[in-house]
């Protein structure tokens, strides 16, 4: 079945190419037309010969993220969340009448594989990119996408440089903003006055949050009792870092790291009989889905996240219900970020009047301005707005894990 589809597709493509070649003189029968041709398969020839029709066809949106590897939970969530939004939009008439075609590629959280995935998507005919999911690949792909003038909206790439170029926007908070917001949250809610930090100095995400947290902590009257790092090559034995935190008398340990190491830290803290409060950022999201992880260890862990699945508003409820129905899983904030990202693209594309026959560069030029003019009510914040430097404007929220589920604080 799959093979014959491929054959049919390649046949369709060949015919479309031949048609566009013969139609060369008539002008703009380029990319968009070919894309429409592949979609309708059998009728390729007529569509191709007929030229690009406005208000129809498909807008090709690419996605990139890790759906295997140690950060697979993020990529999978983004993929599912974005697909859900795409399906909803398509069922309700698409963007300006054009249907969305979504193609998600795996990058295993590896910069090289991510750039390869980007090139694969470009060959496929991607017109704009929702991605990538993790920071380091996002920065690598950003260098390419800015060269190509390809619009890029990352749901969750939080490193500062993820929005370095003017074609890049993000849905989540940037790392420094997360670090500052965490310090403010801990200070304002009087969660602790003596805080220990354990972070990954070899990771741009982790050290980015760490630096801003340390500088903001001083303004909030928080004393940094112990500040210890680890590196990617030495990330299984945390006995020393935890011991130092314990000796310093810290009431709260701040973990601006990813969930796989956090799971280890929680287990080792239990082994040594140390039970402070733990507070993390969006990297901890996914903790509860680690295979065979004892969720009791995560009890009372707090994390800064823009999305709590148990929130009572209609939008969240509707999203959580349909997500559970489709994927049999409670969505995390990455799924919500991705869902918002697709709707932000829709809002901006409608505002700018983007149509399926425009090429990537033209779409990018239009969306760049449109993004700063829209305001959407999303899952991760009400009245989300964007500035021209790509940063979102919304209020931070935190959740606490109680009985194995996120509970709004």
């Amino acid at each position: 079945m799959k093979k014959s589809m491929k054959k049919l597709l390649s046949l369709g493509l060949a015919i479309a190419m031949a048609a566009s070649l013969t139609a060369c003189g008539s002008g703009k029968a380029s990319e968009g037309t070919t894309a429409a041709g592949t979609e309708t398969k059998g009728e390729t020839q007529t569509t191709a010969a007929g030229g690009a029709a406005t208000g129809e066809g498909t807008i090709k949106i690419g996605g990139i993220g890790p759906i295997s590897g140690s950060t697979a939970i993020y990529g999978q969530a983004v993929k599912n969340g974005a697909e859900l939004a795409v399906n909803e939009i398509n069922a309700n008439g698409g963007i300006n009448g054009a249907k969305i075609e979504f193609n998600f590629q795996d990058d295993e959280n590896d910069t090289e594989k991510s750039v390869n995935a980007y090139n694969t998507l470009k060959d496929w005919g991607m017109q704009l990119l929702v991605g990538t999911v993790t920071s380091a690949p996002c920065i690598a792909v950003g260098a390419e996408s800015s060269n190509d003038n390809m619009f890029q909206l990352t749901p969750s790439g939080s490193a500062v440089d993820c929005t370095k170029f003017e074609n890049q926007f993000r849905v989540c908070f940037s790392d420094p903003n997360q670090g500052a917001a965490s310090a403010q949250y801990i200070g304002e809610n009087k969660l602790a006055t003596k805080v220990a930090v354990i972070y990954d100095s070899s990771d741009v995400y982790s050290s980015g949050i760490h630096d801003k947290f340390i500088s903001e902590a001083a303004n909030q009257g928080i004393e940094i009792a112990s500040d210890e790092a680890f590196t990617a090559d030495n990330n299984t034995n945390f006995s020393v870092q935890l011991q130092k935190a314990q000796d310093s008398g810290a009431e709260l340990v701040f973990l601006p790291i990813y969930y796989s190491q956090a799971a280890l830290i929680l287990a080792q803290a239990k082994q040594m009989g140390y039970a402070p409060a733990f507070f993390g950022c969006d990297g901890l999201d996914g903790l509860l889905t680690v295979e065979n992880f004892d969720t009791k260890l995560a009890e009372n862990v707090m994390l800064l996240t823009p999305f709590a699945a148990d929130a009572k508003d209609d939008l969240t409820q509707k999203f959580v219900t349909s997500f559970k129905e489709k994927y049999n899983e409670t969505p995390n904030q990455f799924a919500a970020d991705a869902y918002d990202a697709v709707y932000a693209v829709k809002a901006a594309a409608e505002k700018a009047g983007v149509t399926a026959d425009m090429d990537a560069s033209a779409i990018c030029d239009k969306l760049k301005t449109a993004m700063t003019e829209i305001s959407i009510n999303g899952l991760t914040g009400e009245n989300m707005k964007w500035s021209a430097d790509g940063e979102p404007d919304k209020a931070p929220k935190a959740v606490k894990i109680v009985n194995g589920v996120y509970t709004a604080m």
Partner: protein
Amino acid sequence: MMSFISYFINGLSLGSVYAIIALGYTMVYGIAKMLNFAHGDVIMIGGYVVFTVVSTMGLGPVAGILLAVILCTVLGVVIEGVAYRPLRMASPLAVLITAIGVSYLLQNIALLVFGSNPKSFTSVVTVPALKLADGKLTISGETIVTIISCVVIMIGLTTFIKKTRAGQAMLAVSEDKGAAQLMGINVDGTIALTFAIGSALAAIAGALLCSAYPTLTPYTGSMPGIKAFVAAVFGGIGSIPGALIGGLLLGVIENLSKAYISSQLSDAIVFAVLIVVLLVKPTGILGKKINEKV
């Protein structure tokens, strides 16, 4: 003071795991004169077997460790028979490359079978933590069991080599392969036995490593494998007590430098110490001086 003791004991525990792994390296090197770089990945396979038996099939930890020991022993013998035995006469470089190949093969098989998502390992240790000095010093059950296992294994192995015929045959093969064969010793069988013992130890090391640091990925074995190799060289490769001393020293240095110098530079410090030791004593702490005949 309490925290120093705690760092030290945690270092001993880490060092004990390194020592058990280093034994596998050092025995194989001593007898077959080759570096088995796939050793670290046998540890990972052992970890996955224990994980599957205990967490997926719901059997007890003892059954898990036993099965892991059996499977890893078989795996070790098969690797030796398929990948290394045909190369017995080849250059050491060819064998080294093969070993690296086997290492990648094992990692990729694990990637295929278990996927790359990290799994949280349920500790096989049921010993409760020890609280000393009014609860100021807590030594986890994992730490106690790891250190004791290391000591028991070391005594057992030394006795085995000194007191049994098979052990004596190992010594003979390590001294001179050709002469041993002339004396009627089955060299291939002895080398296979060495791999079997080394791999069985790897399975135990896997269970202990994953219990103390409860995460499991297809790459779990590679970093400890490299560190244990360093420990074996540190103590004098080919020497069994050397592996113990090297492993323990490495673990303690790593933990103390993390605690008192820098938690980020601990690996660099470990390797710097290795370089200094090798400059002073090129064959390692307990290494034999080898007289090359010209």
